[in-house]
């Protein structure tokens, strides 16, 4: 989408010479590797209890559901707020400082 492209600018301008096109390919490869890994980390978080640390020392727990592609909103369930449990909610990512969860590291052989 155009919104996505605007959020993800290439760091090398397209007017540069052929020397840079090799760098461009390298950069795109790096972007792919990093992005795939990030999406897998989100997949690992689905249906897990996630602890969100937000601005102004707000700490909340919720069950993670989904994210939009530009990581602007997280859809969560059972958001535990000081005013009670919100069955379904959207968390705006710019309000978050960090989030954490844990998974089984089960050593696979």
């Amino acid at each position: 989408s155009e919104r996505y492209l605007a959020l993800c600018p290439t760091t090398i301008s397209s007017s540069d010479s052929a020397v840079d096109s090799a760098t461009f390919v390298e950069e795109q490869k790096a972007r792919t590797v990093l992005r795939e890994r990030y999406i897998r980390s989100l997949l690992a978080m689905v249906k897990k209890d996630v602890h969100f640390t937000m601005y102004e020392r707000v700490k909340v727990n919720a069950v993670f559901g989904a994210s939009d592609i530009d990581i602007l909103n997280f859809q969560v369930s059972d958001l535990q707020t000081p005013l009670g449990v919100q069955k379904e909610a959207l968390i705006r990512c710019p309000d978050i400082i960090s989030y954490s969860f844990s998974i089984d590291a089960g050593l696979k052989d």
Partner: protein
Amino acid sequence: MNEWCKKTPLEWQALLHKELKVCAHEKQQHQGWLFTVDPVSANIVLVSFEPDGKASIVTVMGHAVETVEVLNEGSDAISNRLVSLFMPVAPQKHSK
């Protein structure tokens, strides 16, 4: 936009599988092995392995990052553990 968000994907990739200490807004500090940096949001995914066989995953939002410091260069063993945590089992070899 902070310094961290302005880095290129190649600079982020160079940090993969290293142990990092990340300082973020409101004096937050996090430490762990770098699994990835999202190239869109610059979010940092750190993994620490707990003694009870669990892995704890902390993601620091790119917009909240203040400083990033490398503590340990990592090893093949750590790389393999990180990859096997999230990635699907390697595809079977098929005959030609």
